[in-house]
């Protein structure tokens, strides 16, 4: 039952914003289902991929996919992801998290008031 609810809620958010699935699933896995952090990240990524593919199909059907933009972003993303993986454990997570929080608050307010 717990898994049904978690799945549906994460799915709705993921489909609605096409993002944030991992931000929700990783803490759910670590705190509620007691996975360690690495397994939680791996398992959440694995869960989200099919959801993202479904979102892509629905968005494409509604003409929300700009392939030129998406592919360019993905190109940068592949290089960035590789760099990020290398940097992991080399820079302090605490300061990074603080920057991330400040950015989220700024962006959140910006999105609401714009």
């Amino acid at each position, binding site marked *: 039952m717990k*898994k*049904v609810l*978690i*799945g*549906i809620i994460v*799915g709705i*958010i*993921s*489909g609605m*914003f*096409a*993002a*944030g699935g991992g931000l929700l699933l*990783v803490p759910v896995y670590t705190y509620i289902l007691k996975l360690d952090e*690495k*397994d939680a*990240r*791996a*398992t959440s990524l*694995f869960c*989200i*991929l099919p*959801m*993202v593919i479904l*979102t*892509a199909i629905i*968005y494409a059907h*509604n003409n*929300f*996919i*700009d392939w030129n*933009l*998406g*592919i*360019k*972003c*993905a190109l*940068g*993303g*592949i*290089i*960035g*992801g*590789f*760099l*990020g*993986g290398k940097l*992991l454990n080399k820079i302090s*997570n*605490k300061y*990074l*998290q603080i920057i*991330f*929080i400040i*950015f*989220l*608050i700024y*962006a*959140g307010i910006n*999105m609401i008031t714009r």
Partner: protein
Amino acid sequence: MKEIIIGLIAGVIGGLGMGGGTILILLLSIFMGIEQHIAQGANVIFFIPTSIAAICVFLKNKNIKFKIAIPICIWGLVGTGIGAVVSSKLNVNILRKCFGVFLLIIAIYQIYSLYKTYRKEKNRNNTIKYKKGGNI
């Protein structure tokens, strides 16, 4: 070029495990003025190749717990169908505001999680100090 740099930044953040997709959508919409639906669409295309690469590594290291993953994934797809259809029908302004609220909720959770790690670290340091004192 701008798009590639934005993708690169989001990729680094994602690789560090901190919500690369959220950052990608934000950068596209704040710095390039791209409409919310299209920015979200770009994130979907961004996510697929980057995550497949990471999943391959995780599969090799046996980090994926299938027993948990499969039921959540199946129910997740049901939710995704609902979410994506609702999102497609939503007015851009409302969708953007909803996304803003979602970001603030994530921010609050992140602050809580930061506070929790801080408390844990402090406790551990105190125990170490106490133990050292005990030995003397």
